[in-house]
């Protein structure tokens, strides 16, 4: 990208009155920036995490419930070449056709069978994606969902990067309860809208000042902080006139304004750091849903760039949702494979000729991302070694089932993870998926011993 000169354009300023206030800061809230972390050698290298979700479950013709059925002696049956699971038995990995794209990454991936969120059981097949990254008990005590894993991490380490987190999805926005279009939630009732337009994401990440001079941006931010202060005071006096019960509701509002103030402060501090220079060669930001492969790879590329430039360390990506009707997502499988019908139908009908190919196509896109991280050296290893990547769905083969998710964990070998196995958590070994979340958070230096309904950590994936 060409470096823009910082000349002061009076007319631009008049036209864009207060534009600085709208500075699209992704989700860079959390605490105001502390020490700026410069990418350097050794143990100060960043620790990253991505949670990526795919919709409609996956093809598992041998075991629709997501775990091997007990009455078929597993030794008698060959593993299905198009099952989403790479191999039949727990133990060292081998790869079938569906999972073939991951074969070159054998030592960087693990598969986890038999895990799920109890909070999603009752949500139903079209809604359990809501809690994929949160584990919230939405039919019970947490009707408005709860904080997602990436945001827990962002609250602790988000101040080290320009943006605390990056929330992407193929459809954009928040959706609503039961039909979420984002994986990330700041807390109960606070879904974070996902971004879905590549050009917009790029601009927000790498061109946040929209061509304005940095001094000008700073002045705008200073003014903005004062205004938010006034609004805050204004709202406080309003709150005092309300009844006790209603004050709680206004606190919600006041907290939001305070968070905006912190965001301003944070953005202002980051103006002292130069923006990263991005090589946009090969990046097609104009891509549309009509070219699913180009589009999804572009989204993955943007996450890669955000990680590579250390613009953020925590990201989520929701690829389609169970509620994508009326959108081009409905036609993905048609564009990619020539499947005659809505993509959603693959989940219900599980046609033998398309289901496996569809899974394989999705695997290819994800493997592309892992490979890209893997091929990029960092410190004494590569970027994948310092990035945890969880990839999965909230349903198995039986598309309305909300148990036994297909799950793959990749990367993080330098963060204490060990790969190359299929782990099974069935019967007496069954534990909440949240246990994995505890271990993932610990691996990126978030000291929690509990997440949602967790009962401990998941040592199986640790080296």
């Amino acid at each position, binding site marked *: 990208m060409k470096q823009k000169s910082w000349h002061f354009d009076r007319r631009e300023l008049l036209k864009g009155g207060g534009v600085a206030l709208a500075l699209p800061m992704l989700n860079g809230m959390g605490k105001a920036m502390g020490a700026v972390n410069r990418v350097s050698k050794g143990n100060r290298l960043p620790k990253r995490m991505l949670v990526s979700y795919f919709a409609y479950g996956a093809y598992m013709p041998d075991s629709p419930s997501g775990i091997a059925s007990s009455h078929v002696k597993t030794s008698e049956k060959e593993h299905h070449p198009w099952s989403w699971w790479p191999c039949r038995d727990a133990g060292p990995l081998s790869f079938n056709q569906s999972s073939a794209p991951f074969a070159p990454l054998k030592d960087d991936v693990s598969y986890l069978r038999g895990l799920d969120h109890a909070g999603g059981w009752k949500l139903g097949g079209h809604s359990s994606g809501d809690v994929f990254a949160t584990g919230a008990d939405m039919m019970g005590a947490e009707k408005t969902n709860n904080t997602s894993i990436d945001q827990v991490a962002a609250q602790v380490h988000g101040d080290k990067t320009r943006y605390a987190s990056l929330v992407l999805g193929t459809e954009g926005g928040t959706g609503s309860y039961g039909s979420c279009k984002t994986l990330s939630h700041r807390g109960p009732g606070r879904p974070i809208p996902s971004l879905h337009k590549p050009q917009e994401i790029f601009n927000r990440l790498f061109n946040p000042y929209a061509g304005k001079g940095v001094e000008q941006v700073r002045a705008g931010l200073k003014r903005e902080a004062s205004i938010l202060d006034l609004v805050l005071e204004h709202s406080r006096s309003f709150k005092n006139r309300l009844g006790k*019960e209603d004050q709680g509701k206004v606190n919600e509002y006041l907290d*939001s304004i305070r968070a905006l103030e912190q965001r301003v402060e944070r953005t202002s501090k980051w103006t002292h750091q130069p923006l990263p220079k991005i090589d946009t060669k090969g990046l097609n930001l104009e891509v549309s849903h009509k070219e699913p492969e180009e589009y999804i790879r572009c989204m993955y590329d943007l996450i890669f760039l955000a990680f590579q430039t250390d613009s953020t360390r925590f990201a989520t990506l929701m690829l389609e949702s169970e509620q994508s009707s009326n959108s081009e997502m409905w036609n993905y499988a048609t564009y990619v494979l020539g499947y005659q019908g809505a993509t959603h139908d693959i989940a219900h009908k599980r046609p033998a000729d398309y289901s496996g190919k569809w899974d394989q196509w999705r695997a290819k896109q994800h493997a592309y991302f892992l490979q890209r991280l893997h091929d990029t050296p960092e410190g004494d290893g590569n970027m994948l070694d310092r990035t945890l990547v969880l990839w999965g769905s909230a349903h198995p083969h039986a598309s309305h089932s909300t148990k036994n998710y297909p799950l793959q964990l990749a990367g993080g070998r330098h963060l204490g993870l060990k790969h190359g196995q299929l782990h099974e958590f069935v019967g007496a070994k069954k534990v909440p998926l949240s246990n994995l979340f505890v271990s993932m958070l610990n691996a990126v230096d978030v000291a929690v011993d509990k997440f949602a309904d967790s009962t401990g950590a998941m040592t199986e994936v640790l080296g």
Partner: protein
Amino acid sequence: MRIRNHFVIFIQLLSHTLLVSLGTAQVGQQGDGYIVQVKPFFQTHCIRCHGPEKSKSELTLHTLDGDLALGRGLERWENVLDALESGSMPPEDQPQPSEAERKIVTEWINQGLREFIDHASQEAAKSTVRRLTNFEYENTMRDLLGIELDLIEDLPQDPLKPYHFNNSAELMLLGPEQINRYLEVARRAMASVIVDPAKPETYKTRQEWGAEESNKGFAKSLPRNEIAIQNSRRGTPGQGMGIKDFPKTGEFRIRFQASAVFPNGATELPLRFVMGYNLNVNSSTQEVVPVGVVHLRNSPREPQVYELRGRIENYPVQMGRMHRGKLRPDTLTITPQNIYDDGSLNDDNRFLYWPRQPDMPRAVVDWIEFEAPLTEVWPPTHHNRILFDSPLRESEPRKYIHEVLTRFMSRAYRRPVTVGEVDRFLEVYDLLKPELATLEATIRETLAMVLVTPQFLLHTKAEGGVVEQDYELASSLSYFLWGSMPDAELFGVAAKGGLDEPEEIEKQVLRMLADPRANDFVSNFTNQWLSLPKMKTVPINRDLFPRFLYYVEAGERAGTERPYIPTIRDHMIDETVGFVAELIRRNASVTNLVDSDFAMLNQPLAAHYGVKGVEGQRLRRVAVKPEHHLGGLLTQGSILIGNGTGSAPHPIYRAVWLREAILGDKVKPPPAEVPALTDSAGDSAEQALTIKDLLAKHRTQESCNDCHVRLDPWGIPFERYNAIGKYQPRVPKEGTRVRGFDLKRDEDLAGYARYLESINTQEVQSEARVPHGPQVDDMAQLKTHLLTARKQDIAENVIRRLLTYGIGRELTYRDRYEIENIFTDWAENDFLIRDMIVLICQSQIFRTP
């Protein structure tokens, strides 16, 4: 130690009370009535299924204690009361208590509940503070700013739950992302509302089409200025008029000269204008927004000039693309569409195009003119309303801004503002002024900040002065009946005082319902209450219903539903909303919801239902005859399609709909692990009709049967209404393979009818015995049963739905007796719907939610 002493005293007091009450002979509210009469009743009739061993419906009663006054388990008590009063429990196949026994228990519960509620109503209820829904937000901005802008696309969606309203306080939370989006949206709106002083140049463009024969495309013989149905030949107006270099904001005007040719003798042709992307690319990623519809009745000998207006901001601009190293300009395309539709839907759309149907009406468009921004009045009215003319503006600028803020904020906050509140924003203004320089730019930003305050974004029940209570009531009324802020008259009455009087409320409610803004309320309420939107996404089986939808004939989207034109499904939603609106307008009885002597139809709908003599696309009241099998909500296409599979009727969906939306029951969702019926039925013509067999499966499993025995029979009488909402008494024989529809053999409509006759050889079974009711043979008998035995339940349900919508929270046991009061008053009015809306607005719950 002191704590323990207190505790002892407390225990003593408690036992004392107990002793005293046990000692009295009266059947009191305390333990004795429970022990003597209720507990034995529970033991005999309830505990076996709702007790320590089984807890069907997740309800257990053995842990209930006998003292309602402590306020424990009241929701459960209310459940029990409902079940006993309605007679739905104990189940029919179990021994039944006598009426007297039933009565003793219900009276005991009623008395206890009442006492508790009377006592508890002293305490404050749950908070009902909630933000404006997106629907309310957009309407409020429209009325506050005086221009219509599409604003909510970028806001987080409102919570959505079938049969529930999206304004429930509990689920409406606010977060920083949301506030940030509100701010972005407010800025966008203010940029449109406040203009710069210099009058902009008006952009104007015009295109003409002559009557010479076109020589392009397959419709060669048509004159160039004509638009056949769904046709967009090159070089004709149907292909759209592209514009570039247009202004980005402001009001626009489209003028055009048009007429119509009616070879078939029709008298009216709807010509719709849409604007946005160019529609000639075969794709569904394009976006267009309708500008308006004109109904042409004039022939080309008497061409007429028509005019449509709108705001440019609301239309999707097609971004310019790079072409040979040069960036092409952004464009907007204005496309006139001939949307004439007489309901003679056509297979695969093949016969729709000219010249295959030479007698279908065609629109003639001689020229189109586009003009923007309109500057006849400059600055525009919406600008002047905020930055009004005043000598103060020059003489005392600060005082002027103070006045501007006072006026604007009073309307934004829906009540008079205090000087302190205004001063705060005067400070904001002062902060912004040095940098933004002009008055206009500064006031834009200042007012955008006003629009993110809680006073604007939240509905509130403020404490304090009597003055504000009238303003709050004004807001309650306007958000209920308009989904928007109060108008000048409501503000006026609130300022004067006396809005609280029942007569004044009635007067205002009637006035507001007559206002066009009430259409928003009816539409929003009806869509959510009846869970209508889902009908738009049910995929209709093309093999079974080849004539129901228009399909794209060729290209990469061949076989998909034709986008960008109104479809029969849109008309069906209009039908249902229009039906409810008609009931309110005529103050008709609630019984019309179940059965009515009229339907709201236009030509495509009438053709669909087989009603003759309706011409044109305007919805109107049409008398129904028995052979139409119409009347009421139950047989409307929107309901039947939304609660079907697209291939077959779905008795369970329809039963759930009837019980939830009409009878007001809460139907539990099935356990997550149960496979859905639709997974195995409806893929093909042969499989489409075997749902009844699947229902029978339910009965063989106790876990299913417990619920389905009370559910399925409600859906069976709907069976003669097929998946596209048509009366279809005969179907192919069970298990037979039917031949597919053959375009060549069954070319015209008569052929299609013959085809249907040849495959539909068996009468549909629609007999069922209604739970706790009689045998009904078909829909007509079901309606009769509902109107005789369930009229009161239906009326109470409608009260509850409207009240929940009106006050923005779920009703609880606390509201039970208030609702009973409204019900009693209403029963005296024969359950006339408009009267009930008045009664709701006059009720205590509505005024102090």
